[in-house]
């Protein structure tokens, strides 16, 4: 258990509404990531953070924004949700400063946009 909590775990919303997913960690890791998982596409990186207020884009960042105002929380926001953003969203932390390819993932947040 890497001390990662995602909330909410399940959410159903309507097209055009804003949605915020929260990732909370308890071990002060510097690096945090948001991925989405879709059949046939695997896991695709949305955004990641390398410190408080330091974030960068991933492969599929359009339509998403992130914020990290404190070490333990990394928020993913869909400003105006669309049906194409229906997915399972995973938060992950990197336990070390070097990128060894090791990430610890949360349990996921399943989002359905109607």
């Amino acid at each position, binding site marked *: 258990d890497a001390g990662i909590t995602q909330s909410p775990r399940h959410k159903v919303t309507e097209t055009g509404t804003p949605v915020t997913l929260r990732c909370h960690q308890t071990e002060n890791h510097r690096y945090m990531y948001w991925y989405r998982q879709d059949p046939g596409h*695997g896991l695709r990186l949305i955004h*990641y953070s390398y410190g408080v207020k330091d974030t960068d884009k991933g492969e599929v960042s359009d339509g998403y924004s992130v914020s990290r105002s404190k070490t333990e929380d990394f928020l993913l926001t869909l400003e105006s949700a669309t049906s194409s953003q229906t997915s399972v969203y995973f938060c992950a932390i990197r336990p070390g400063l070097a990128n060894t*390819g*090791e990430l610890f993932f949360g349990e996921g947040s399943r989002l359905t946009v109607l």
Partner: protein
Amino acid sequence: QQQVKQSPQSLIVQKGGISIINCAYENTAFDYFPWYQQFPGKGPALLIAIRPDVSEKKEGRFTISFNKSAKQFSLHIMDSQPGDSATYFCAASGGTDKLIFGTGTRLQVFP
């Protein structure tokens, strides 16, 4: 554009058989190649990883083979068991803080 290509998409193996999943990459800056295992309803978990200066790495029944010149790597699961039934992802990192995943392989092992 998929930076890490994974095949097959699904795999059915009988108990005791060998499961083989293949991945290929283009970016020569990649220098870590992990494999992740994911059970239904759970997040992916690191299974085994390899660096390109090693051609093979074995941990129990799981072996990664790496071919640097061909830019390919593969996961072999020996003596496959029903408990190995899961989705497997290859991944690659290097040169940036990103970890790029393949599209996944759903493995089913039947008794």
